[in-house]
């Protein structure tokens, strides 16, 4: 008896939950409204069956519960009833399947006028490639991938020379134009998902998969990786920005093509030395850092990382948070390096400085720190030397008090929260896993023990 009432409550509760709860599909932002329709249809059909079958179940329990003198019917089967039920079920299944197959047909057939864009996945970042004026993407291969050619562009392919390479987690798309997204992975399986677009597809290393959609809403949308891809899977984020054609073109033009990138001059260390004079006031003549001035050590740090941070400081992606006291000091300094060439030159000069190990100032439980560091290894490497391929800077042998402060900043959202700081965002998620200050100290104490 109780069970029948509970069943009834659960049925009603489920239906009410469906209609009243705020949790449902996100607002659609692409042409795939017919996917939403198939979901709606499936909800109606299955909901009907759910309610009817379970109500009947509850009613049977009440009506035919045990009572004295009552005997059950003896009816081993009822062919007619069973045939009817089979037929009706088959009808319901066809009603759901047929539209499903039709929509899938649309999904596998990409419209002729769709423009191709490539999304490249790697542990745990996105980057993108847009065909240049020839509207054709060049071929690529894993064997070409290195620090200077992260996209693995085929240097001999004329189609690839004008491809625009976007080494960042943000993709812009013009509104109302169908896009065929080609999906390529450099290492493991990933998945390109934008919840509002409804469609998703895995990126499979060793082949290229695709999906297509037409963005219909202007706005910013999160890209999530939805195929498990390693320990930082949950932190692999990107963003799609859908905008008007003109804005899109402006954005596209701010990136260089493959040909331009490969012909960029290297930094000039001699020229950089002059510019470094300003930096040496705080960071020291040898770039050894100064704890009293809250300036971290620079020598030995990786060039690409320092370059990115300078650009972030300049653009306000870093050092603009009101609680980031020391970052705010650095921001105006970075603006003194007006051009990209100036930045390259300064970095080139810092690279010539000798790598002087920073003194250890942080103490903690090294063993505990080692345990925690297991989660950092995947990006920063087992010896904390950093990996450009994973956008992870060197941490071993760098200024330890600075590491502590940055970890705290990441954890509190003082650093990495800015929308343009896409790599920092990942670090905020990782730093969030450090529960307290003691853990941070233990971790940094362990990093101090790593070979310099």
């Amino acid at each position: 008896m109780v069970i029948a009432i509970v069943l009834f409550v659960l049925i009603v509760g489920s239906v009410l939950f469906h209609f009243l709860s705020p949790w449902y599909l996100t607002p659609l932002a692409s042409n795939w409204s017919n996917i939403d329709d198939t979901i709606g249809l499936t909800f109606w059909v299955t909901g009907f069956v759910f309610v009817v079958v379970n109500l009947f179940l509850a009613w049977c329990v009440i009506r035919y519960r045990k009572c004295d003198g009552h005997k059950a019917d003896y009816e081993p089967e009822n062919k007619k009833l069973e045939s009817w039920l089979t037929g009706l079920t088959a009808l319901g299944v066809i009603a759901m399947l047929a539209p499903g197959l039709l929509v899938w047909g649309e999904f596998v057939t990409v419209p002729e006028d769709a423009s191709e864009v490539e999304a490249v996945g790697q542990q745990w970042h996105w980057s993108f490639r847009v065909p240049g004026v020839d509207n054709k993407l060049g071929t690529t291969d894993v064997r070409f991938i290195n620090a200077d050619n992260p996209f693995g562009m085929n240097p001999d392919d004329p189609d690839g020379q004008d491809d625009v390479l976007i080494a960042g987690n943000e993709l812009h798309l013009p509104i109302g134009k169908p896009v065929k997204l080609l999906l390529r992975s450099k290492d493991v399986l990933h998945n390109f998902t934008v919840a509002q677009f409804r469609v998703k597809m895995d990126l499979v290393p060793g082949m290229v998969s695709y999906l297509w959609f037409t963005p219909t809403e202007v706005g910013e949308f999160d890209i999530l990786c939805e195929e498990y891809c390693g320990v930082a899977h949950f932190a692999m984020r990107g963003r799609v920005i859908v905008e008007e054609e003109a804005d899109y073109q402006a954005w596209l033009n701010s990136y260089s093509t493959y040909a331009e990138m490969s012909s960029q001059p290297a930094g000039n260390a001699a020229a950089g030395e002059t510019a470094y004079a300003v930096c040496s006031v705080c960071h020291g003549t040898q770039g050894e850092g100064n704890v009293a001035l809250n300036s971290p050590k620079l020598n030995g740090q990786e060039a690409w990382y320092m370059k990115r941070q300078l650009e972030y400081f300049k653009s306000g992606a870093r050092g603009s948070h009101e609680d980031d006291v020391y970052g705010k000091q650095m921001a105006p300094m970075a603006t003194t390096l007006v051009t990209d060439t100036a930045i390259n030159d300064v970095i080139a000069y810092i690279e010539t400085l000798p790598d002087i190990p920073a003194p250890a100032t942080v103490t903690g439980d090294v063993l505990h720190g080692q345990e925690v560091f297991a989660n950092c290894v995947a990006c920063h490497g087992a010896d904390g030397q950093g990996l450009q391929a994973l956008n992870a800077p060197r941490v071993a042998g760098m200024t330890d008090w600075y590491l502590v402060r940055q970890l705290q900043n990441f954890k509190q959202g003082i650093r990495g929260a800015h929308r343009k700081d896409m790599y920092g965002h990942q670090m905020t998620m990782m730093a969030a896993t450090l529960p307290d200050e003691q853990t941070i100290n233990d971790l940094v104490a362990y990093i101090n023990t790593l070979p310099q």
Partner: protein
Amino acid sequence: MSTATTMHDETGHVPPAEVEEVELYHAKTWLGKYVFSQDAKVIAIQYGCTAIAIGMVGLVLSLMMRLQLGFPNEFSFINPSNYIQAVTMHGMIMVVYLLTALFLGGFGNYFIPIMIGARDMVFPYVNMLSFWIYLLSVLILVASFFVPGGPSGAGWTLYPPQVMLEGTPGHEWGAILMLVSLAFFIIGFTMGGLNYVVTVLQARTRGMTLMRLPLTVWGIFMATILALLAFPALLVSAIMMLFDMLLGASFFMPAIVSMGEQLDHSGGSPILFQHLFWFFGHPEVYIVALPAFGMVSDILSVHARKAIFGYRMMVWAIVAIGGLSFIVWAHHMYVSGMNPYFGFFFATTTLIIAVPTALKVYNWVLTLWRGNIHLTIPMLFAIGFIFTFVNGGLTGLFLGNVTVDLPLSDTLFVVAHFHMVMAVSPVLVLYGAIYHWYPKISGRMFHQGMAQFHFWITFVGSYAIYYPMHYLGLMGVPRRYFSMGSTDFILPSAQGLNEFITIAAIIVGVTQLLFIYNLVWSLFKGEKASDNPWNATTLEWQTATTPPGHGNFGKELPLVYRWPYDYSVPGEDIDFLPQNQPPRGAG
């Protein structure tokens, strides 16, 4: 009738009823009786205890995951590495080492011989080996918790390339131990499976035609056939994966860059692994489900005092589901990057499977209709199963339909669906079955109050966990995420729902301890059970002693005169006629 008569003249063997008890190997020593036993019933209990023990580990791992999801970053003992290791081990333990082993190794061993009127399995020695190899595989799996790097954190699907790369926890030792353990499991299972199939085919007692088998036996029998044919796919993928990992082959490994360095592999295809894995993985769902279908049919029939509705259709459906389950595997792979045209084929086959499955549900409900429903504990679990399974089965129609799967794949909707259909449903049947047969197996009744409490928390609690989870998935919350961080599209209130789910999960999880306590308590303190406390018809209730001794049936095997569902037969005084009761006027 036709099979019975046509086959009659083809046989020239000794009728089982005349097999003497002496023929059996009776153990003389304590070790031979209880440890290295060749008695299927003892092996069944060994299987059951091992499976439940490792299952408890799986349960603890799931609670650890739920703690992190409900209260992100609050607990310092959970970090991204051991979180994903918990996800992996939880999945593998529950699916293979708990459910498969418990349904087939546990219930299969206990009930196949006794329900078909046999003294034991046909190859008792192989049967014993099967258990010890299973135990070895469990130990290897457990060992992976203690090796450097810990157990594999590749997800229970063990997809390459990530399974063997830096950046995945346990890529050094954990993954290898997992594959080796699986290989042992498969070898052990094959030994057991051969036994089950041959026993059903050849050791049935006189009068026990195939169409007089209880549905429990049908379910286990079909599941065993599925497992025998599907597990080789897992073995094949495990062997090939080990070749890739240890010998540098490139079956599944394409040319890739890992941690900034080119690897030596080239040309392989990760999708190939996925096909092989799911060629095993989908039938695996039914390996777990079919025995549950069978057992719940019997429980419903006994406690509703009514013949199972549409027995022939039920058998038909079990066989059809079993056959179809081999050609639907790629519905797990709609968004895997496989040839997209496969989607049409697999969506069609997948939705076809819904028809026989739905039919089974109707027949269960129709068994209750016009019945005489005794709301005993096993019956409560059976009703709970129907409700849960209807829900889980219907959400399967979302995921099986290729278009609808697009937005839902890889989200919590999937997690909620397969837990409803593959975790909660079969587990409710497991509990129902354990309560139902506990009096026979142990000779004592279980404690009613504790069992009631256990039922209500488990049934309502599980629904509270998984029903709302579907809606998180609809909103787009992905699975296997350590934490959501900030997104634009997930409502902040979703975190509140996550907390609710975690609290429900903890309550349900802790309540399972009560179940184990009840099992142990009742073993010593429970009220003595009669031989046939539920007035059931099937042969296991007609044994001379309770619990049944070695050889099951004392001196003479029972003869079977009727099908197993003669409940409330019109014109009879009592509401059940055991299978071995001769027709009136003939005895």
